[in-house]
């Protein structure tokens, strides 16, 4: 964001003098970011994919004509047809409904786990980066401990403790991904706190909390935001992987990993069982990756 302000000044936008100008400048900043973002065609594709995902999750009951839990044992393993657009599973449940309702789990787990890990990571990363010394050492060692677990393997350990379900999955993913956020923010803060404008704010009498919240955090936040966006995709994959392995959400819940796990037994005979939920996962992940790519380019040209 620093670069953007610099860019603006360089291209001759007037410097702020009054509060109204300040507001205008802010709006201009967001317009610039939006402009840079939309210049990236893949980012637009990503935005559309993410929007479709959110709409699907929000409007799930309106988009489907079958209950995702309703079994029809007289019509199992039906291939895609006019009645069941994406066929039925081994218990005769409508595949389309299950995929549509599965988007809810993806959205909830993806957003909640990343929100949680970002909040934890930002708090600890800011403490380590700003307080330095002993705090830094202790916090970063603790982060190292959590970093030492491969994501899925760590998550499985937590789920073994808490039991299967949506909440344990969210918690387990957050517990093993905050460390990266903390590291990112810490190193970003270490470089911004030496910047001239922070020195200037300090020289003007700015202290502790205000320095952190007004000057250091806003300028260190771009990498964290980009990372968080990418990581929603990672969380969606991790959540589906856990369910695929039988340690995610409960087995009868309409969820993509569960569906693919069922379809695994029908590879080569009823491929639509795993193919369609797989497409849903892939499009979701790509959506967040593309948006993350676009955000990175728009927020910080240096990161490109």
């Amino acid at each position, binding site marked *: 964001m620093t670069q953007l302000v610099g860019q603006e000044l360089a291209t001759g936008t007037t410097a702020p003098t009054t509060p109204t100008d300040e507001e205008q400048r802010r709006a201009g900043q967001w317009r610039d970011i939006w402009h840079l973002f939309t210049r990236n065609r893949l980012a637009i594709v990503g935005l559309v994919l993410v929007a479709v995902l959110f709409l699907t999750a929000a409007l799930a009951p309106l988009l489907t004509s079958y209950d995702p839990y309703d079994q029809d044992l007289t019509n199992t393993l039906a291939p895609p047809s006019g009645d069941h657009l994406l066929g039925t599973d081994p218990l005769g449940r409508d595949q389309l409904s299950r995929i549509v309702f599965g988007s809810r789990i993806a959205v909830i787990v993806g957003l909640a786990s990343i929100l949680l890990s970002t909040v934890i990571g930002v708090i600890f990363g800011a403490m380590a980066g700003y307080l330095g010394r002993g705090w830094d050492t202790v916090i970063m060692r603790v982060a190292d401990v959590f970093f030492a677990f491969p994501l899925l393997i760590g998550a499985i350990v937590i789920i073994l403790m808490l039991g299967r379900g949506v909440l344990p999955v969210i918690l387990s993913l957050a517990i093993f991904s905050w460390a990266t956020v903390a590291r990112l923010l810490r190193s970003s803060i270490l470089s911004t706190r030496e910047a001239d404008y922070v020195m200037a704010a300090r020289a003007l009498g700015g202290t502790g909390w205000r320095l952190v919240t007004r000057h250091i955090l806003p300028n260190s936040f771009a990498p964290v935001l980009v990372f968080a966006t990418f990581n929603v995709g990672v969380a969606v994959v991790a959540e589906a*992987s856990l369910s695929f392995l039988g340690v995610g959400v409960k087995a009868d819940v309409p969820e993509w990993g569960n569906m693919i796990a069922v379809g695994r037994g029908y590879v080569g005979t009823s491929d639509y069982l795993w193919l369609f939920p797989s497409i849903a996962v*892939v499009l979701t992940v790509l959506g967040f990756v593309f948006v993350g790519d676009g955000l990175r380019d728009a927020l910080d040209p240096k990161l490109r």
Partner: protein
Amino acid sequence: MVTFIIRRVIQMVIVLLGATFVLFACLFVLPGDPIASLAGSERARDPAVAAELRQRYNLDDPLLVQYGAFVWNFAHGDLGEDYAQRRPVNEILGPKVVNSAKLAGVAILIDVALGIFAGIIAAVLRYSFWDVFITLLTTIAIGFPVFVIGLLLQQTFALQFGVLPLFGMNDGIKSYILPATTIALVDAALVARLMRGTLLEVLRADYVRTAIAKGLPRRTVLSRHAMRNAVIPVLTYLGISFGGFLSGALITEAIFNWDGIGLALVVAIQQQNNPIIVGIVAYSVVIFVVINLIVDLAYAALDPRIRLS
């Protein structure tokens, strides 16, 4: 360099102690009674037998005592006895570790070879058809979860074309191809992107221009001057990505019925066989941390600037 190594090794030991403690604390408060899920659970319902079993596995000791005993034994390479077969965990996991390591080895070879090759092509032929093609392919590949790739490969090469085994590990080198590719593919895409980026950056450096200016053939400039420096970030990345590798191997082994520690973990979870779970997770953490240490040291050896800071 020596102080650097010592400092990093001490750090590593602290991390390992912390990680094993987290693991142990989690499994200690696990709901459910592991004794109840022991083999021969009919007999285990007899309180006297159950008490004897609890004694045998030290389940009645306080957390810290159990943890201390675990660390002591683990440091001596002893992971205790499992609940299902009552055999030493090491004896059970030994051959499985070998199987997993073989698969991982092939996977890393595919990963590095494919990733670096594609990255070099894309960077050297920048903006050509191949560059666009590789960049697009690697961008899309990132969205593919391991289990989707595994099922796609099974469907295509084992069932559609019937050229490779569907699962198992009894067909020699042929049985390695699909699972190893499954683990490696997404990571290879990331390696290719990283390789392209760093190589493009290095190709703009002054020393490369000098090398070109003094009339060295392009091939020599690339292999002697550019690649040496461009490969360092890729090396670091491989260390970090190893965790993803372990997670990927877990799913891949389950899909391809590969008799390694990944499959063993999935089975142990179903049986609540804690000693096996603890053993496998502890091994993964140790391997992950040690590999990162090696990468750090290699990095410091290759790039003198790191040691100084």
